[in-house]
């Protein structure tokens, strides 16, 4: 599986339903986030429309989240912005200043329920599983 190179495709994840967000720590030297999502059938990108995807944010260097759990409607992705907050950027710079290499991908995932996840990671992999219905 190749990493996702056209990151603008992430815009088509608007309204994708998030079944789970796993923090994977089983590999000895790398940690990942894995999102199990179902893309909206009207997403606008045919290869993903209505599909079940596993999105892996590989080699997470640093992340920060504000998660709201007291809700009963499905959790959906609202938008994914390039970039992170000033506070997290400063933390990246601090790590870099002591010689730690920080990867280049910086995203803020905004969910429809108000949850916000900032991630700095090395690569993104998208595995298309099946048609949701």
């Amino acid at each position: 599986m190749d990493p996702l190179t056209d990151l603008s495709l992430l815009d088509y994840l608007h309204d994708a339903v998030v079944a789970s967000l796993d923090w994977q720590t089983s590999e000895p030297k790398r940690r990942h986030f894995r999102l199990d999502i179902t893309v909206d059938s009207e997403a606008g990108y045919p290869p993903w429309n209505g599909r079940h995807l596993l999105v892996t944010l590989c080699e997470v260097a640093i992340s920060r989240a504000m998660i709201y759990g007291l809700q009963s409607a499905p959790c959906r992705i609202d938008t994914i912005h390039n970039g992170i907050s000033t506070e997290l950027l400063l933390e990246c710079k601090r790590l870099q200043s002591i010689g730690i290499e920080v990867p280049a991908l910086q995203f803020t995932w905004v969910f429809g329920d108000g949850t916000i996840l900032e991630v700095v990671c090395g690569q993104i992999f998208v595995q298309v599983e099946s048609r949701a219905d």
Partner: protein
Amino acid sequence: MVTDAIPEDTSGRLPRCGGFGLRFATRAERRRAAGRSAEAQFGRGSGAKAQRELTAAEKLEFDGLVTLGAEQKAASTRGMNGRILSVAEQAEFAGFGRRAQRLGFIESPFRTGSWGRMEGNTYHEVTRIDVAEVGKPGWRGQTHIHIEGNPSHLDPLTPLPGE
């Protein structure tokens, strides 16, 4: 007179300012002042709550990095990564909000534009407006609404349950 126009003086010493009695508020002082202001407005104990609920833009103002105008304050959002709304976007959210409010729905405590009801301690979304983000493809680039039980993206004028 306390001002935060210049980066804070962490030493707490009074700088020489030509005898006007001018000194710079420390960050801690600004934080305490914001808490007092919130308590004066919303009641005792609300200071800390108000601090937790600041939007990203408000946080910048709180830290003395920017000064928001009244229009920007009104246009800031909750749970949208500090998105600041234009006047037109604000009108879309407000118009939808008025309709939802008339039907007895409450706005989500977590996200601007989401309306529903509290079921005990849990918020249940019934309807939501997604106002277009300029330059985004697909549905994120088009204003639409969602109504519970209807999987499609709907025209914003679609009647809400009860309309």
